């Protein structure tokens, strides 16, 4: 296993190289793991108190609360790992309400025998992700299960943030004529995981796009607080998010095909496996529904942010075919972009 970054932060010396059942038993070994692996990386004034709960200030107003559990296989993939994915995933779910994410809890389920070296590397990546997003980890829990009862480690993160007063973002807010803005390329994360898992290699590595999008959302709210809807299209991809919008608002969505951006190597992977990038998970992209009069300024502001550089307007809200997402084909025909059924399966030929 290579350590491309954080060489300045070697694995702490513990009495064991690997996680033992006793590390989850609440005794001396548990404390050693918390003190050496978790606390130094997640430390803040709340966590430091080591109480059974975090007691936090309430600034008033509305709270956005979310939870997500991460079981990705492999736990390391090009562009990220299960650690930064777990932070960014919950941060993004909170941020898609327009809220500023503030506090997270982290729950680990560790498989007996997991190398501390691996755990340490993941915790470091969580530390960096939390720092970038500007969130504090204020509560945590660790359980160790028998070998075979989980696959290396699972992570749950829950968290909340505060929604600005004048912001009201919801999947049911779409209005006729609204523009649909996508913040960047499609399918990077899903294809990075799939190509790693299947051992497929390409001339240039397919990298996950895992990233926290809360700063991008705040930049967008700076242009206008009148964003109608926001989603980060993770599992099920863009097609699923747009179908949810169309159903919740009972409007049609029309996509202009030629503008759907997919990186060249990602497209190659999708072609080989017979997979449609519209249905593949993203972990650092958002789709925004905005009124037409703010669309261009919103787009320009997004392009100034590192995570919105490749943003583009990909479609609009229409009164035709309510509840349906349709896409213009190169030949000028119109086809449905349906909700996926289960996972996409590579085709025989």
């Amino acid at each position, binding site marked *: 296993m290579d350590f491309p970054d954080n060489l300045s932060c070697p694995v702490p010396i513990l009495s064991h190289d690997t996680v033992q059942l006793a590390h989850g038993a609440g005794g001396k070994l548990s404390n050693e793991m918390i003190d050496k692996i978790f606390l130094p990386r997640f430390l803040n004034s709340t966590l430091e108190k080591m109480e059974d709960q975090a007691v936090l200030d309430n600034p008033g107003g509305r709270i956005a609360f979310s939870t997500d559990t991460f079981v990705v296989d492999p736990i390391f993939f090009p562009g990220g790992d299960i650690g930064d994915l777990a932070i960014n995933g919950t941060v993004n779910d909170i941020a898609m309400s327009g809220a500023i994410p503030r506090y997270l809890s982290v729950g680990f389920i560790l498989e007996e025998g997991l190398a501390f070296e691996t755990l340490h590397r993941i915790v470091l990546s969580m530390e960096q992700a939390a720092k970038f997003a500007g969130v504090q980890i204020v509560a945590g829990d660790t359980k160790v299960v028998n070998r075979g009862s989980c696959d290396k480690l699972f992570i749950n993160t829950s968290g909340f943030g505060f929604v600005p007063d004048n912001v009201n973002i919801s999947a049911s807010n779409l209005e006729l004529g609204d523009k649909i803005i996508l913040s960047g390329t499609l399918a990077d994360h899903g294809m990075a995981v799939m190509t790693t898992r299947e051992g497929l290699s390409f001339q240039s590595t397919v990298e996950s796009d895992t990233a926290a999008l809360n700063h991008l959302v705040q930049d967008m709210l700076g242009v206008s607080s009148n964003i109608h809807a926001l989603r980060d299209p993770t599992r099920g991809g863009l097609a699923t998010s747009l179908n949810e919008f169309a159903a919740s608002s009972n409007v049609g969505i029309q996509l202009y095909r030629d503008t759907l951006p997919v990186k060249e190597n990602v497209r190659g992977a999708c072609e080989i496996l017979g997979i449609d990038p519209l249905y593949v998970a993203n972990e650092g992209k958002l789709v925004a529904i905005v009124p037409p009069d703010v669309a261009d300024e919103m787009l320009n502001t997004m392009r100034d942010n590192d995570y919105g550089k490749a943003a583009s307007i990909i479609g609009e809200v229409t009164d035709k075919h309510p509840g349906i997402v349709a896409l213009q*084909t190169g030949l000028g025909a119109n086809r449905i972009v349906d909700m996926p059924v289960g996972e996409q399966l590579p085709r025989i030929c």
Partner: protein
Amino acid sequence: MKYLDEFRDPVVAKKILDEIHVVTTQPWVIMEICGGQTHSIIRNGIDQVLPKEIELVHGPGCPVCVTPLEIIDRAIEIAGRPDVIFTSFGDMLRVPGSHKDLFMVRSEGGDVRTVFSPLESLKIARENPDKEVVFFAVGFETTAPGNAMAIAQAAKEGLTNFSELVSHVLVPPAMEALLSSPSNRVQGYLAAGHVCTVMGWDEYDPIAKKYEVPIVITGFEPMDVLDGILHTVKQLEAGTYKVENRYARIVEQGGNQAAQALIKDVFEIANRKWRGIGEIPASGFKIRKKYASYDAELKFSVGDIRTEEPEACISGVILQGLKKPHDCPAFGKECTPQNPLGATMVSSEGACAAYYKYQRILDK
């Protein structure tokens, strides 16, 4: 992307389309054999922009769709055994058998794995000498060389824990069966480009002559399909019936000789049942006697499992091009991709699934 974008160029595609409109003077029924072409036609909306005189009917070239129910039931029986690792291409896992599909076998504890190549199954067999590793070898001539190679390689290595459950079918006998049916409506064929890549096109000449139908070999991108339709229509309008290769960037007349030699070594021609169509003589492959120890049907004695097709589903007549998915009373109601009554609703290459996915409501 090189070798793809130039065959998806909407400007060039529009030119071919315009030419099709110019040369078409009367109604024609053309069948695309291959499910990959069906998928491309529906996905790109080619059927929506063709002259109304041209009717495309969707052929039986979807391996998932034509694999008979009893083979699925045999697969499920084998996959459920505790000593077996059952490996398959992804889209076979969701095909419903009589009572369950392979995903359900997996959730019940069966070791069912998706692979991208039968050689991957061989690797699993090498790594798990105490398990029986079975590969679900379905498909047309396209997948036959790889599946033959896995058996030849296993024999060479002396691997005894690898076998294949074979349900291989062949395109030309199915084309003939459709043409000789009294209810046939097909006047011209788009032949499947990748099948011809392996087999060449010599076997199509007698069919074109005997039934007086033009057969145009083409690919899968929108421009390939449109170009294939254009040249079929040109022949139909001129009253000619030749085999024409419009996929010359990949297909050669003699096909891939090395692949054919492999197929011949491992497989022999056999009668095969086609789901929805029934048994067609000499329409598939079975494993030769000398490789009998790699035949999962013999190894696990599942040959006795025989199943009748459910009656509600009209996938049989859809696979023969006699009806369209919309004509089925169950389409989109009792029968959906979540709850498919027949195989044409399962695979993305199946006509029913393609219609459901892309054209369910817009064309009302």
